């Protein structure tokens, strides 16, 4: 599998120094080396920006650092995919596995796009991993 849909929690690790940031950046270099592409949901960019804001709000980052993190995120070589088309499928997944619609949208889009998925959310992988083995945990990258 060459193309990967990336969850918000992985994107954040690209631009903030968090646990598993090294794996998140390895995903980028490995995918580029394999000639694949990275995809992100349009919603994920807003979620990631909000995480950067929370770090600013808690004074874990300066404003300049927050702006730089956001700018780097926006410069990432990713294809942005609109999530609305998969919303109905996502709702079904959310109901079936008792996961939030946001999580289910990531799962539904992995299936609809026929790509792999990468997330750092271990509970999500525990719940849907058997039915969606194409979703990998970042830690195992």
């Amino acid at each position, binding site marked *: 599998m060459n193309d990967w849909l990336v969850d*918000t*929690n992985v994107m*954040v*690790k*690209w*631009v*903030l*120094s*968090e*646990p*598993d*940031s090294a794996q998140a*950046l390895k995903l*980028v*270099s490995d995918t*580029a080396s394999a000639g694949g592409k990275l995809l992100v949901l*349009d919603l994920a960019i807003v*979620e990631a920006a*909000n*995480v950067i804001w*929370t*770090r600013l709000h808690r004074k*874990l*980052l*300066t404003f300049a*650092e927050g702006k*730089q*993190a956001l700018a*780097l995120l*926006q*410069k*990432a*070589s*990713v294809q*942005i995919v*609109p999530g*609305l088309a998969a919303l109905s499928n996502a709702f079904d997944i959310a109901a079936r596995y008792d996961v*939030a*619609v*946001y*999580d289910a949208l990531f799962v539904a889009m992995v299936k609809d796009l026929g790509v792999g998925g990468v997330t*750092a*959310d271990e*509970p*999500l992988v525990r719940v849907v991993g058997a039915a969606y083995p194409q979703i990998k945990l970042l830690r195992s990258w």
Partner: protein
Amino acid sequence: MSSVEAIYASGVFKPLSEVDLPENQRVRLVVEPVAPAAVGSWLAEVAAFQQQLVANHGILPDSTPEIAADRRRHE
């Protein structure tokens, strides 16, 4: 005349930086595809930034549980 980068998604152009225009101002767009930043140079830029963050603040808390909790915040 000014230039701004934008992303086209779902039939809408979304500017990547602030645009100093009044609401509903009509503009003319000349569409020029922008190549994504080369992965290698982006990775180098990110690595340098992360080093700076670690030097200034150490490793930041893992945001993954917060994102998951935020997605379920109305439970």
